[in-house]
């Protein structure tokens, strides 16, 4: 296991290295290399330009530049953004990445949870309008042109009904008198979310592992209790309305994203369930006289879970990538938006920095998938 992980990590580091090299040579292959862009940028004061030229070693030979670039990247030094001057790329990414992650983590977890739950039921009761309707719905959600779907959601729920804000991260009016910055509040929200999910996860793990009597009650109670504590702490902090403003802005993009990836998750679960249901151990479980629900959940769904988990991690990995569209439509200031605006304003350091980060994120997610798989499938022992 440890050996496998080391091997895999090395492989991923190699991949990262190749990835960085490709980015470097793509940037350098175009006429007017990165140094040119920097030195010609009129926004930069002369001393900064000199410093940057020094930093990037513009006058050095290409291979030396390459080494410097790799070193800078690995130490998190991506340079200074043009469009958001004088903020550094690392600073911009540090602000935007959490926003993207929260959005996508929530939506991906939700959509896979719902997709798995429904796919399970649909596969179990084959035929009938439930299967037909949900399959059609899922294929539609799976193939719909995402920007259009997002637009329709905005139009329906924000524009026509006026229930939710149209887009963006927060409402500036609310924040005019705010005692803290949006980032501070948002970071607190992230911490809350982590604490909350860890607590609930621990309770669930404990009650199912130890087979505690009345597990359902304890689980429900713990959710209510932690929610109450969290709500209390937030109200006491006095910035609850600001946090709520952010939450309000999150509902529509999270809902849209959830619906979009829900279709795929459900179809995948359904197919995986149908395939698993043919296995002999499912017949054996039935022959053992286990209740239907136990056969479905413990034997079929548990084994059908494996490909769904793979797909879950993949969609997490590509969340930032696929989310570019959603972020752009909802004007959500995350990594995707950053990448697009960097690309359209030719803010090269920011574009490359954001891109490299997206790549690193994907690689890490792949590594996480491998570890998770070992845990889920006892047959896999590397």
């Amino acid at each position: 296991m440890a050996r496998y992980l080391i091997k895999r990590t090395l492989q991923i580091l190699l991949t990262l290295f190749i990835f960085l090299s490709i980015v470097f040579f793509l940037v350098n292959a175009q006429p007017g290399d990165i140094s040119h862009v920097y030195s010609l940028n009129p926004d930069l004061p002369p001393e900064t330009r000199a410093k940057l030229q020094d930093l990037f070693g513009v006058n050095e030979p290409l291979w030396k530049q390459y080494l410097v670039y790799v070193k800078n990247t690995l130490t998190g030094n991506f340079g200074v953004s043009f469009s958001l001057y004088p903020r550094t790329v690392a600073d911009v990414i540090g602000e935007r990445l959490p926003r993207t992650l929260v959005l996508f983590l929530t939506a991906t977890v939700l959509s896979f949870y719902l997709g798995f739950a429904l796919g399970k039921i649909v596969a179990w009761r084959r035929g009938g309008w439930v299967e037909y309707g949900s399959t059609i719905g899922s294929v539609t959600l799976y193939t719909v042109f995402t920007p259009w779907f997002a637009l329709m959601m905005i139009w329906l729920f924000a524009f026509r009904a006026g229930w939710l804000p149209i887009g963006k991260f927060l409402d500036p009016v609310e924040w005019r008198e705010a005692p803290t910055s949006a980032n501070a509040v948002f970071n607190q929200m992230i911490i809350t979310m982590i604490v909350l999910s860890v607590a609930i996860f621990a309770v669930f793990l404990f009650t199912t592992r130890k087979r505690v009597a009345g597990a359902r009650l304890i689980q429900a109670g713990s959710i209510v209790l932690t929610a109450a504590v969290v709500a209390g702490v937030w109200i006491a902090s006095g910035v609850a309305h600001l946090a709520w403003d952010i939450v309000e802005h999150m509902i529509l993009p999270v809902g849209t994203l959830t619906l979009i990836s829900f279709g795929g998750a459900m179809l995948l679960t359904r197919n995986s369930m149908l395939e698993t249901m043919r296995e002999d151990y499912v017949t054996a479980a039935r022959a053992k006289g286990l209740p239907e629900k136990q056969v479905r959940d413990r034997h079929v769904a548990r084994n059908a879970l494996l490909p769904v988990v793979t797909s879950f991690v993949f969609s997490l990995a590509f969340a930032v990538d696929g989310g570019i569209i959603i972020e752009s439509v909802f004007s959500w200031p995350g990594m995707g938006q950053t990448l697009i605006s960097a690309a359209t304003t030719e803010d090269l350091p920011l574009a490359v920095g954001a891109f490299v980060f997206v790549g690193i994120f994907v690689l890490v997610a792949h590594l996480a998938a491998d570890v998770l798989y070992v845990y889920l499938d006892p047959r896999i022992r590397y």
Partner: protein
Amino acid sequence: MSERPVLAVEDLTMHYSIKAGAVRAVDGVTFSIERGQALGLVGESGSGKSSIAMTLLRLLPDNAQILRGKILLDGVDIVPLSEERMREYRWNRISMIFQAAMNSLNPVYKVGEQIIEALEAHLESAREESIERVRRLYDVVNLDPGLIVRYPHEYSGGMRQRAIIAMALACEPDLIIADEPTTALDVIVQDHILREMRSIQAELDMSMIYISHDMAVIAEVSDVVGVMYAGKIVELGGTADVFHSPIHPYTRSLMSAFPSVTGKKRELGTLTGEPPNLLDPPEGCRFHPRCPYATDVCSNQEPPKVRRGNHWAACWNPQGE
């Protein structure tokens, strides 16, 4: 013996409906098993042996229907039972040793856990008791109790088959159906396991149904043999009677397809032709297109039962005697 048989099957008929029509997989099958008896069902693949097993447990796919007949388990007909009542019968009263031991254990759970699961579905016992019981079962089937907490992929083929047997014994059922219990194993392991099963059966005074295409296996373990052809039992009788003086031409050709080590030298007979298409089985005796003794009457009338003591066959032109 006036004791009620453990299992009595009467005129059992089961069809699968597919696009092209009805597949007559089990057609008017009648047999019974006394306590402590072992019945062997033998026949080519597709003759309906496994379908009978699945029908007895009522584990049929959606497109299968039991059209006629009774399955009397200790006098109670289980055909009309609700799914929930049936669930109580499964494993508790009839359990099964599956054809593919490899695939009938769920790869993601420990083997012991999968046996305990069956126990918990039927018995109200504490977890410690269940574990203790699995331990004893492992003893019975000669498995190291340390293996209880191992996963199926950590077992060898023979070990898996033993675990499956332990699992089938878990609730002390009245009847165990063994569907090709040893086909996937090598000959030596196969022999060991069959012998153990035989002695366990005698010790616990259980009834068994062995299903196999392998005459040798059936001859070794069963007291009574039923020969199946195209969804019907064509010959039924004591093992020695059926194997030494077969009545039905099909049984004879099956016998001669196997070389005898101790018997006198003879031509190995081969069965020509294909087993019939159960969507549209031949009229009269279903074996007549392949039967060397077929006469006109065979092709249009159901054959009568020819009895010799406790041994019968459905045939117009009985052999032997």
